[in-house]
């Protein structure tokens, strides 16, 4: 089974040879291979929602994480931990927001839970602890509230913003 490779094709035409086991971290690809009976040999798996640059990053992530244990079931009612991102992942995600954005979409489309979680956590970390103005600066957002609306929303949130 070792060395069994599959071809993944980005929407801009580039193809990448990837180990099947690594590729199967994507539930979407796994489904395509297993349930839809796509053969592993000659076929190329087209990924119309992912461009070549992003696909390259995704493959890089999946390769590094190939030996990870399967992620645990999400306990909705437990406090989520934002600080448990590995240092490799932190470095991997030191990219511009545009890339991070595309990675979230790709992780969602390819259904790679670990990548989706870590990218979303990264964005959450960019919001955490910040005032609304700092958040606006972080993401380049326009404040489209009228002063009255701002006042009203501030009141509404008064108690919710307490630590």
């Amino acid at each position, binding site marked *: 089974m070792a060395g069994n490779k599959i071809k993944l094709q980005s929407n801009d035409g580039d193809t990448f040879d990837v180990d099947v086991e690594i590729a199967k971290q994507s539930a979407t690809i796994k489904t395509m291979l297993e349930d839809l009976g796509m053969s592993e040999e000659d076929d190329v798996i087209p990924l119309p929602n992912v461009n070549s640059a992003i696909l390259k990053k995704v493959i890089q992530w999946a390769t590094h994480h190939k030996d990870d244990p399967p992620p645990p079931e999400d306990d909705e009612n437990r406090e989520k931990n934002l600080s448990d991102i590995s240092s490799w992942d932190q470095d991997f995600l030191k990219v511009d*927001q545009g890339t991070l*954005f595309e990675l979230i979409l790709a992780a969602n489309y390819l259904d790679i839970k670990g990548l989706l979680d870590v990218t979303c956590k990264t964005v959450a970390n960019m*919001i955490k602890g910040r005032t609304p103005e700092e958040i606006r600066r972080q993401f*380049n957002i326009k404040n489209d509230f009228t002063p009255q609306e701002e006042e009203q929303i501030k*009141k509404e949130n008064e*108690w919710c913003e307490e630590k």
Partner: protein
Amino acid sequence: MSSESVGILSSPDRSSSPSLIDQLTQNSCTATQISTDYPGEILQQIRSPGKRQLTIEESIVTTNDSKRICNSNLREQCDSKSTAIITSSPSPTSSNNTDSISFPPSSPLSSEVINWLDIFLAMSNEDRTRATEALIRTCSTNILQLNQIKNQIEPYFQRDFIRDLPRELALHVLKYLPANDVARASRTCRSWYETCNDILLWKRICQRKMIPLKKLRTIFDEAIENEWKRSYACHKHLEYVWQHEQLVPEPVVLRGHEDFVITCLQFDGKRIVSGSDDNTLKIWSVATGKCDQTLIGHNGGVWCSEMTDELIVSGSTDRTIRVWNIGTGVCQHILYGHTSTVRCLALHGDIVVSGSRDATVRVWNIRTGERLHMLSGHTAAVRCVCYNGKYVVSGAYDHTIRVWLPDQEKCVHTLEGHTNRVYSLVFDGKHIVSGSLDCMIRVWDVEQGTCIHQLTGHLSLTSGMQLRGNILVSGNADSTVKIWNIESGKCLHTLAGRNKHASAVTWVQVVLNYVVSSGDDGTVKLWDLNTGDFIRNLVTLDSMGSGGVVWRIKCTDSALVCAAGSRNSTEDTKKHATENIYIVTKLLAQMMTLTLEEFNQCISDLYEQSQQIHDRWQLLKTSKGSYLVYSFVDQDHLKHEFHIVYSESYAVPVLYFNISHLDGSLLSLDDVWQLFTHKKTSKMYETITQQEHSILHRPFFVLHPCHTENVLKQVADQPIKKKFLFWLSIYGQSVGLPLSVHYAID
């Protein structure tokens, strides 16, 4: 071309400088073009650099920070920016002024700049790269300039995740954030506000902190639409009030049962029921601070009580149990059977279980007054009892706890282990926790009948315990409160230290995430349930030190009631207090069912409508309050008179009525009941009593308001006016008040 270059832009692998300048110049041309083509209005949604087309935002944009440029006015700024860069202008603020209102979109580039751009555009890609590098290197000596360039470029690398991601992915990001961050994020802009107010997001936030949904009206109703967010805000507010706020400065002090011990206390947020050694129980209204009823009938001290919405059950040294109607104060049943003091009660639905000094446990139906079962087995006084609908659990002075199946009158387990009298019990259906004079607390499994844990550590008798999930809180005469985990059997915290009680702890209760404890030292203390930290003293009796004692406390989320008194210094502790005081501390303005203002508004409105449809309602305003009157004469020449008056203690409208002969003589009670016998089965009928009209001070029949709140609950989310009419139609109907349908029409 633009979308491709933009796509390349987001790739971290490609060097972006040439293509950026490419795009920049491209866009500057486009910008000028667009601005000339569409002079005022510029179109659609800006989307961050990405696969989508870049267009210009419709509204003129300003940002709070004058240095920021939004993606939206990127185009318009391009022109002046390029100017700034080229001419090395040292004033970043002016050129970065994003107040587009003052910045005309079609400000022309100087001819020098245009020439320069033309030359640049004519260059090969390689030359462009070189040129840009050189440009940046030149500017690098000027930090301000470099900053400008960075500020120019940065927006291209930013994405508005929450707005642009599909909603479920945006929520996936937000769910990692605690409430305060979500709340702050919602203040960023409209699209974030909308997403951050997602109801499931807040539901999850509340569930994580075990905050229940607040259905009743709250002070945040106007401000917050999202019901889970509202519940969260309420919870936070309550926490703040418990922890910080000065309790209502003049706590309502209710004096009663003078010279006698208060033995038991019930509190449902609206009414307090106190039982005493003076053979009575008293019902107090939280709203008015007055004693509404004194329940007289027992021939001995009342030592235990239970309370439902409608009934009070009391046990006495006179060996009986009495069932009282809360509204009328009438004793509905007297339950005979025990041959000694009834010492403890447990209520479940219509069933009450009583434990007595006669060593038996008896089971009764409080609706019918039926004696159902007798459970014999204990060999000494039964001191505490619990019932969950299936098992009866009783603790006695014979050192044992017995588990019974009442319907079979069978004792399924006798739990032995304590070496002295059992004084207190808590039961959650699975675990039984017992406190004994042997200083131990034991945890038992009700099914197996085995002792799971012995909780050691206390040095004296445990006076009160409360169980929340697996966490047990125990108050002990050794002056400490302990917090245990009954699964592990470990003591998690001991609430003592510098701020500990100076003498015996008399009662504990768990409220929100706090432990509230009362003591012989005259204080009521607030502790953090999770950390065991002391927070503050909620109450400190003036007579502290000189015998002021808080016997018992009962809390709701937003109010605290204490029964207090003073011990005189006799040896015989059964000899009692010289003074009994209740302190009711209202921590949070409670939402009344109908405020006085709302009532006055409703009756005004009704009167107005009545005028319009030529009906007979009269509105009377007096110094004691306003009320409505309606009267008519029926075919038997009986005059019917109806008054709608406001009840302060129940905070609801009340319907008074009288029926009289034309000569003015009132119908007797019997006659009135005759008139309504056909309605005997209705619940309303049960509540007809005779009372003094609160404003006119003469006797009227009244449909007692004790049910009104429940009735109004059915229309809880309706506007006030509808609620009022709903009430009037139901109550009025029971006593023959005609109400035109026109009132229901707006």
